């Protein structure tokens, strides 16, 4: 079976696009072959910075003939219909058609059409140009004379206007050969925008610039390797990693591995050569993360950790590892030297940033208002940065106001949460005030991923209490399911306040996550709240907290004078309009707004606020009740996902959530689910579940039929002892379980319910609910309803499987 070799050679393809592009090429070509009726045994893609290549093995040489039968008109049909049939079936004369008989319709024509199979080469010659033209590059370009207007010639090339080929960078040549292993493959001949397919490629740009004629993949890869090009990206990665480790080891150091950087670097070279460079030890006073990111982002080099026994945890050495693309004549001395110079210049900048951040800002005078607002200390550098963040009105989100406003809200919220989680409210407030200050530092400006971490370092340097410094970093945590959850009460207060404020804000402006889209990482924020609450055992009323968070927003809008009540809408909601100078309020006393008024409006839950944040778009806030309940059910969804990942049963979570009660305290929900799971594992639990379900099923069936069910159980109507026994047991269990739930002793509640098992079982054994006397039946149904109600205090048993 023949093999196909395809190479699309271009100018340097951005490293981040290569892997996906090669995969797309494989998929598009193999899909196209299959669609055209060919099969293949295996396909694998290769790539370097200058080429995408594809090796397809065992392609069928021809697509099969396809036989098709087409029914035509009756033999008695008019000439016109027969002519039409001939045309559509591709026949020249009606004698080429067969005649078939049908007992009902009589004789009619049938054409047997054979669609000839096509040679694979022919299919490939059509397929490749189509794939090249439709290739899904994230960004593509036009180039050269062909990009000129139609009809204008530049030398021997004519402009193609809008029809010109687009590629990620100029496409230079196409290799396309096809043939069995035993023979010389042929060039599949085609042309794309003036580029004619062939069997010639080129090696390394500097080491082997001459033309190389290739036959099939095996000699293609081998000849390229001889021409200092390794087409297998994973092999390049292995070489770089192994050589880098060895080089570090040989110098008594540890390579700091970085998969993302390795992938990128392997896409920048065709012939990797690993070298080591260095910088002055003085730069090591810069935090290691900053050094690593500086060298990585700007120079795409690896750093090495020191292995000296006296080293500090995570300390770096003053050596770095670079990957060159050539075997330099001097062994790479010049290259290492040159890279070292650039690294030193970059580290000088980083050192400058690190030091600048610890010094006074200019123009401290203009920060006064912000300093007072947040109770800042202008002697301290990080306080100055917070003042500037507020002073500059840096936008957090166009519809949600500035970072300064955000910090104000978080600060109040954190202070309120502090006593609940056992934190000192003053420390929580101080940590909140400084939490976002590092956004104004030079280092975070350069490396946004260091937010929080840098704030902590600077806070420690200016003598903040350790829990405040830690909270500045940890309030962003946990960043995902595997990230560490903060445990310090101060960190917990700020982390919860920050996440709740974010969630409420985006919910209010209806920017909720949808499907795979979650640009503001709101799922992560909700999971963060859940993990902090559950893993630290924090009791928190979520709806209460979200409510407070909404109020913070609303009052802020009012306080800033950005809103005034303008009119009541026909639907009963209120529209607030901007009034920066409050003139509107004074001129129209009836429309005057106040914090109380807004508070009351929100309280009634009928509220829509129109905020005109920057004097441009009007912003509709959703009614407060809707935000709270919607957000709560989002929390419940995330809680289900979280608990399921922890191995809890999905149906138990549903059952507990459906039972009503205080569903906005996540910790309680989790404890109830745990207790329920334990109970259902016992014999009593299983039987009670069965009995309760039976009761519930009977009730549901009767409710559907509109059978009368007594309002209350009347013992006078009991006819069997089992009825009385159950009645007494239910009364007792209900009150005991109710008390236990109030005490939040969910095991005790389950124990109380387990006493119901025997009476329920014997009731169903001995009593026929469907008595002939409607009064007795109604009474028995009422008794069943009591079982449902008693168990329902703990969970909705009908939602439990089994």
């Amino acid at each position: 079976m023949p093999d196909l070799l395809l190479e699309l050679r271009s100018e340097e393809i951005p490293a981040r696009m290569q892997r996906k592009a090669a995969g797309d090429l494989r998929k598009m070509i193999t899909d196209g072959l299959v669609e055209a009726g060919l099969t293949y045994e295996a396909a694998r893609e290769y790539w370097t910075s200058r080429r995408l290549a594809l090796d397809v093995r065992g392609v069928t040489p021809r697509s099969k003939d396809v036989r098709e039968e087409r029914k035509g008109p009756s033999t008695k049909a008019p000439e016109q219909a027969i002519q039409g049939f001939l045309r559509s079936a591709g026949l020249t004369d009606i004698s080429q058609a067969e005649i078939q008989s049908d007992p009902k319709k009589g004789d009619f024509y049938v054409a047997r059409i054979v669609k000839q199979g096509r040679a694979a080469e022919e299919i490939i010659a059509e397929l490749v140009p189509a794939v090249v033209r439709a290739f899904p590059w994230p960004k593509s370009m036009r180039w050269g004379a062909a990009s000129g207007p139609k009809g204008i010639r530049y030398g021997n090339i004519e402009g193609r206007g809008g029809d010109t080929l687009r590629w990620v960078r100029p496409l230079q040549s196409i290799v396309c050969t096809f043939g069995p292993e035993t023979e010389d493959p042929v060039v599949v001949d085609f042309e794309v925008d003036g580029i004619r397919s062939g069997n010639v490629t080129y090696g390394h740009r500097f080491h082997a610039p001459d033309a190389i004629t290739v036959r099939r993949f095996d000699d293609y890869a081998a000849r390229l390797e001889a021409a200092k090009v390794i087409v297998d990206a994973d092999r390049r990665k292995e070489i770089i990693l192994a050589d880098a480790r060895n080089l570090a080891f040989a110098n008594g150091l540890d390579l700091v591995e970085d998969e993302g950087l390795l992938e990128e670097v392997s896409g920048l070279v065709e012939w990797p050569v690993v070298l080591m460079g260095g910088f002055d030890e003085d730069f090591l006073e810069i935090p290691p993360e900053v050094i690593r990111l500086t060298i990585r982002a700007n120079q795409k080099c690896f750093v090495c950790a020191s292995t000296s026994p006296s080293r500090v945890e995570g300390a770096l050495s003053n050596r770095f590892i670079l990957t060159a693309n050539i075997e330099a004549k001097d062994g790479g001395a010049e290259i290492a030297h040159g890279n070292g110079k650039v690294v030193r210049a970059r580290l000088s900048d980083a050192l400058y940033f690190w030091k600048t951040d610890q010094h006074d800002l200019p123009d401290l005078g203009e920060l006064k208002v912000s300093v007072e607002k947040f109770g800042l200390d202008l002697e301290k550098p990080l306080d100055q940065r917070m003042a500037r963040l507020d002073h500059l009105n840096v936008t957090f989100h166009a519809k949600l106001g500035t970072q300064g406003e955000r910090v104000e809200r978080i600060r109040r919220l954190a202070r309120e949460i502090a006593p609940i989680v056992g934190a000192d409210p003053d420390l929580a407030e101080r940590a909140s005030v400084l939490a976002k200050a590092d956004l104004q530092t030079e280092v975070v400006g350069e490396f946004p991923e260091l937010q929080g971490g840098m704030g902590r370092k600077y806070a420690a340097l200016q003598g903040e209490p350790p829990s405040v410094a830690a909270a500045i970093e940890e309030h962003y945590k946990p960043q995902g399911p595997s990230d560490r959850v903060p445990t310090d009460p101060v960190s917990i207060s700020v982390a919860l306040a920050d996440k709740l404020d974010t969630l409420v804000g985006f919910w209010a402006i209806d920017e909720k996550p949808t499907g795979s889209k979650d640009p503001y990482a709101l799922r992560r924020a909700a999971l963060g709240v859940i993990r902090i609450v559950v893993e630290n055992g924090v009791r928190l009323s979520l709806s209460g907290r979200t409510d407070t968070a909404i109020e913070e927003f609303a009052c802020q809008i009012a306080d800033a004078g950005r809103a005034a009540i303008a009119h009541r809408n026909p639907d009963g909601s209120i529209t607030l309009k901007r009034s920066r100078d409050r003139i509107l309020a004074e001129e129209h006393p009836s429309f005057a707004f106040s914090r109380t008024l807004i508070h009351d409006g929100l309280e009634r839950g009928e509220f829509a606020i129109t905020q005109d944040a920057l004097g441009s778009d009007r912003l509709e806030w959703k009614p407060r009740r809707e935000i709270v309940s919607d957000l709560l059910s989002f929390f419940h969804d995330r809680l289900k996902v979280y608990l399921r990942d922890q191995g809890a049963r999905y149906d138990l979570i549903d059952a507990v959530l459906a039972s009503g009660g205080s569903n906005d305290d996540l910790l309680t929900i989790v404890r109830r689910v745990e207790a329920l799971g334990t109970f259902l594992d016992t014999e009593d639990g299983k039987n009670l579940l069965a009995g309760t379900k039976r009761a519930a099923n009977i009730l549901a069936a009767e409710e559907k039929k509109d059978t009368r069910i007594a309002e209350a159980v009347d013992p006078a109507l009991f006819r069997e002892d089992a009825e009385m026994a159950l009645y007494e047991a239910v009364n007792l269990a209900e009150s005991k379980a109710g008390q236990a739930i109030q005490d939040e002793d969910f095991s005790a509640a389950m124990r109380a319910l387990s006493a119901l098992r025997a009476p329920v079982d014997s009731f169903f054994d001995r009593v026929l609910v469907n008595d002939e006397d409607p009064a007795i039946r109604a009474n028995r149904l009422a008794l069943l309803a009591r079982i449902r109600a008693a168990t329902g205090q703990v969970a909705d048993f009908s939602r439990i499987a089994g």
Partner: protein
Amino acid sequence: MAPKLPDHMHPTRSFQGLILTLHEYWASYGCVVLQPYDMEVGAGTFHPATTLRALGPKPWNAAYVQPSRRPKDGRYGENPNRLQHYYQYQVILKPNPPNLQELYLGSLQAIGVDPLLHDIRFVEDDWESPTLGAWGLGWECWCDGMEVSQFTYFQQVCGIECAPVSGELTYGLERLAMYVQGVDNVYDLNFNGREGAEKVTYGDVFLQAEQEYSRHNFEYADTAMLLRHFDDAEKECRALLKAGAPSQGEFHRLVFPAYDQAIKASHTFNLLDARGVISVTERQSYILRVRELAKACGEAFLRTEAGGATYLSMDGAGRAVDAGGSVSAVV
């Protein structure tokens, strides 16, 4: 070939030798070697030989040095790598020849960079100039990890699709010179290639100016006056475009003078920005205003001879042509 330069003029020994070598290289290729544009610009791209000539269908190959002013980058002469006034070497080839990468590498070899000794790399860098309404795809060219040039295939300039596409090469001359001379501080560059008492360094020529301009850019530039100048330049640009607007079958008559005003507005904005008097929200609107001027100039340029308004008939085809939708039906 050109006569051999004296030794002290070798690009590895003198800043001016580097410039002359590049001139010679690109002149041999057939470029028009121009002198710097006589206005303050932020980059070589602003020179009308690039901004305007990149538009329309006419072929155009040019090379020139352009002093570039970035008021915000001033460091009072204290930073060895950063200047508020520096030189770019700019090459524009339209349409870009298919071997532009090889031509570029040839120019590096001409100034003494051996590609088998130094690691030369094309690293993704998509170029964009919001003020010019321009963007293109290309690379930063690295030499041993240092960015020494910018290599761009213009896709759009002045908001107009380039047809054909131009290749633009921008060499950072000081960086390149520091590299080939092996110098760590820009002010230590040997300017004239002489040694001893005859040696003139980059610092001798520019250090005092860097200090003075840094003061000017950050402390003394009269912002009220600059704000006025910005408005004036904007008005004048629009007035000139209007006054020179073509009647049926004629060319636009005032594109270059109008474009000068767009350049003026752009530099004035950069000074205001350095003085810190433009807020984040205002910033965007200033950039937009300059872009609008650049766009209007670009559109007007297409209605001139240099812009190719008659080039179509010269081709003998005599038909309206799709050149980014702007050329057709002008003549």
